[in-house]
């Protein structure tokens, strides 16, 4: 924006140095602050030690950060052309997992390729958004509102969601389905259809909970409804998390002084419940600051989406932002006892490579959309109008 004079020259924006400078460094700073806070908490939880979490957390973030910068410079047209292949590969991997996947912790999520173990479902969190953005890029406003052509995005979302839900991993399925639906809504889905869909989903919820879910999933939801019913069983996690949060008070117990996390009362304190540790040690002020940072990141990413000149750029950036926002909201609600316990970590704050990778790839895409906001993306088939 600031370099408007020279940048109007054709080809000028394709120079790597210009691209590099076009990256939204404020957003990068926000991400660094969040990841840094995460490292600080991991340091505290380990009893004031870089090992075993804080050092790896920072190292990973550094690597992924560099990767994000590189992805930001990848031409949006390349992203565009790779959208369907990425989705296709992701879908194939999901099928492979369903057939030969390694089950750890009771769910078939992992695919083992030699020494590498990874979760194909993570690929699909980006893949579905890319594929939908690509599809809507060539779709007219009327068709996006209400037409038979909407069956295709429905199938694009439905296939991976069903495969992931079958694993069973309801949290991830939700994190694939909801951003996908968000892209559909952003692309102009009929309001009437949205309302009908929401009412239908609400009506389908109780039978879904009682007939489709596994016992442990159902228990988590029932426990969430009444955590005091079994304070030493399923309700334990929620109760201890609330105690950690509440006991932090306004200012917190102080760095490294959170008794709930330091004495192991808090479960999964370094991953899913790291926000509770933060709340205990830094209190309301610390929590509010971190939530504010997340809010800033979401706001900036949405703004990048809306200044993009291409529909693909807009939808993909907004879809990725929706994914990120859902992570934050679901984890926050879970830690605060407002949602059942689902395995959704707090992005960038929680220890764990997979989610951080997904989120950083997502922000790489968002940055690419910003860097290439004036790039004309043309698809072979559809027209712009």
């Amino acid at each position, binding site marked *: 924006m600031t370099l408007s004079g020279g940048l109007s020259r054709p080809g000028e924006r394709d120079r790597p140095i210009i691209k590099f400078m076009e990256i939204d460094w404020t957003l990068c700073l926000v991400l660094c602050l969040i990841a840094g806070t995460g490292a600080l908490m991991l340091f505290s939880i380990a009893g004031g030690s870089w090992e075993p979490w804080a050092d790896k957390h920072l190292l990973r973030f550094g690597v992924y950060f560099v990767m994000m910068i590189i992805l930001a410079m990848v031409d949006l047209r390349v992203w565009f052309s790779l959208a369907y292949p990425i989705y296709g590969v992701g879908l194939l991997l999901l099928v492979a997992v369903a057939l030969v996947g390694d089950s750890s912790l009771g769910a078939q999520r992992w695919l083992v390729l030699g020494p590498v173990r990874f979760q194909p479902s993570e690929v699909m969190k980006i893949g579905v958004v890319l594929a939908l953005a690509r599809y809507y890029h060539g779709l007219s406003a009327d068709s996006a509102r209400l037409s038979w052509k909407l069956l295709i995005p429905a199938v694009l979302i439905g296939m991976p969601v069903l495969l992931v839900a079958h694993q069973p991993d309801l949290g991830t399925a939700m994190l694939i389905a909801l951003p996908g639906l968000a892209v559909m809504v952003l692309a*102009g889905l009929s309001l009437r259809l949205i309302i009908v869909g929401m009412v239908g989903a609400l009506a389908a919820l109780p039978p879904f909970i009682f007939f489709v879910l596994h016992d442990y999933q159902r228990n988590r939801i029932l426990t969430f409804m009444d955590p005091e019913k079994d304070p*030493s069983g399923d309700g334990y996690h929620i109760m201890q998390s609330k*105690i950690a949060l509440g006991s932090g008070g306004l200012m917190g117990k102080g760095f490294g002084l959170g008794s709930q996390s330091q004495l*192991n009362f808090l479960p999964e304190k370094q991953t899913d419940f790291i926000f509770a540790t933060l709340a205990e040690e830094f209190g309301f002020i610390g*929590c*509010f600051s971190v939530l504010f940072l997340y809010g800033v990141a*979401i706001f900036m990413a949405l703004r990048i989406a809306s200044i993009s000149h291409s529909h693909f750029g807009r939808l993909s950036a907004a879809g990725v932002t*929706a994914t990120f926002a859902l992570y934050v*909201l679901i984890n926050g609600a879970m830690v605060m006892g407002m949602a059942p316990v689902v395995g959704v970590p707090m992005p960038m704050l929680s220890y764990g490579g997979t989610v951080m990778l997904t989120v950083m790839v997502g922000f790489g895409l968002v940055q690419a959309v910003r860097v290439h906001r004036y790039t004309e993306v043309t698809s072979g088939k559809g027209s712009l109008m």
Partner: protein
Amino acid sequence: MSEPSIFFFEVNERQGVFHRRAFLMGGLAGGGLLALGGRLAQLQLVEARRYQKLSAGNQFNYRLMPPPRGLILDRNGVALASNRPNFRLMVTKESKDFDVEATLDDLALLVPIDGTRRARLIKDIARAPRKAPVAVMEDMTWEEFSRVNIRAPELPGVTADMGEVRVYPFGGAFAHVIGYVAKVSDRDLEKAKSDPTQDQDLLHHPGFRIGKQGVEKALDRELRGRPGATKAEVDAQGRVVRLDPEGDIPPTPGKEVRLTLDADIQNRALEVMGDESGAIVVMDIRNGDLLAMVSAPSFDANRFVKGLSGPEYKALAEYERKPLLDKALSGNFPPGSTFKPTVGLAALTAGIDPEVRVNCGGSWYYGGRTWRCWEKGGHGSQNMHEAIKNSCDIYFYQTSLKIGPDAIATAARAMGFGETFDIGIPGQKKGLVPDRAWKKRANKKNPANQIWFPGETPSYGIGQGALSVNALQLAVMTARLANSKKALNPRLIKSVGGVEQPSGAAVPDLPFSQEHLTYVRGGMEAVANDVRGTAYRQSQLGLGDVKMAGKTGTAQVRSYDKVANRKSTSVAWRLKDHNLFVAFAPYDDPRYAVAVIIEHGGLGGATAGAPRAREVMRVALLKDPEVRARIERPMPMPEEPVETTPDGSVEGAAPDEPIVGAPPPSPAPATPTVPAPSVPGAPR
């Protein structure tokens, strides 16, 4: 355009829709974040206090520290019940995933835990409520204790501490009076459950013992004290991370209880009982203080503190001489001839002239049967003084007939028979003082038996029949008789927590005239000091002019009509007569009363009862500084030492009775030391 564009006037309709909806999505995300912020405010600002409390409850753990139990002392401050250190190993179920098996496996490497013990521990731990420690081992050696203590931080739920355990230094001598403490039973817990004043946590503590008998039971709550707590920081697995001594709450020790008993007299009393079964009660005549209250045979109360094994308990419970029974308070016996002074008083009060003589020919025909005197040949002509001295049955048969049962009962009640005294411990049986009203009450279903038959009165007159008394009542009777006119109540608890308990002297006077009391006492003096008295030989104290007065008694346990020889030594123990003796001394200045009951001790109070009463009395007298000064004061005697007879016996002592001479005279009545007089020979 299907939707009107408000904010953007762009050519691209899709962009317009996107912008509006992205704005909406941003709003949703922002709203969601605000909702989280609101929830944070609710938890961290509004409800913070509640969660801080819960967090502290997680973080800190108060471990109960049982209070040291109050000491029980004798009148001179000698500890009768105290506490000794006990190294103890305990296990607590701190968290729900506590692994009992693994913990016991670990502990078995440090201390010996065999198979049966292990099985019982697993059961105990399973039954114990969460967070209530269970004792794995008591009385560890120092080596075991330190070994466990070093490893304890790594073993969740395991603690080794130094507690205290009750100890009774005199073993069995005070077992019936003091009782004992033992593990809290399920019944105790059940009873305490509905009592809000009971500390449930304390009751569940493995180191806590509850008073089960005697003083330990009666004053349990006073002796108990209030528990304290140690504050410790624990992690989610229940491991102690750090101790916080500043947060400790110190326990309040139990109150100290001082008894009126004297350990020396009590010990001597149990000692002289030997293998016999029975009771000895010693009372201070001036104030009612009980100086000794012994029931024999006794048992070692320390065994009960640890928990008695089944066979051990069975042996105690099934032994014929009933060591577990407190015979001083709950053993009721017919008083036999020891009742005669009371009958004498009743007769004097009824207006009988004591000088009216009754002729004793050894037997007397009345009401269709022959009433015999214990002296087959008869005592000849007897007045009341002689009748008491000789314990003449014929005199009292006839005298009691003259005054009737109700007059006897009135006198007996005035002397303390037929009632229980408030001495602070449970278990007294009041016995029975029969009269006409009682006869009517007792035979409600059998009207023919409701009238008092004249034939019942003569037995009553010699302390037989339905009449039954205990050793404490006999001592009270003797003390009241000796104390001129003042009635006395016995007192056992001298002070609780330093607060002096009411004295036993604060009771109304006896309803007898001074003259009559003196007369009856004269008869008792003659029993012990007249050479023809029934207990003359056995009643010589050997303490100079300090003399004893007494009364013998024999109580039949069966009818002798069909038995050829009452004195036969071949009679089985349980068929022998009870042998009783009551005494007070010094007779010219009565201070101490003694009552002795020897269960199935054989015929004649002088044989089994009197020598024992004498030995106990000697200790009581020698411990009294004033009496001792009197004994040891230089006699007004000639220059040369008094001649002793060649066989070494001193004048006044029967040659066939073992006696110990008075301690060598010394001008200063130093600390009363108790000589160890020899135990009298086994009674016939």
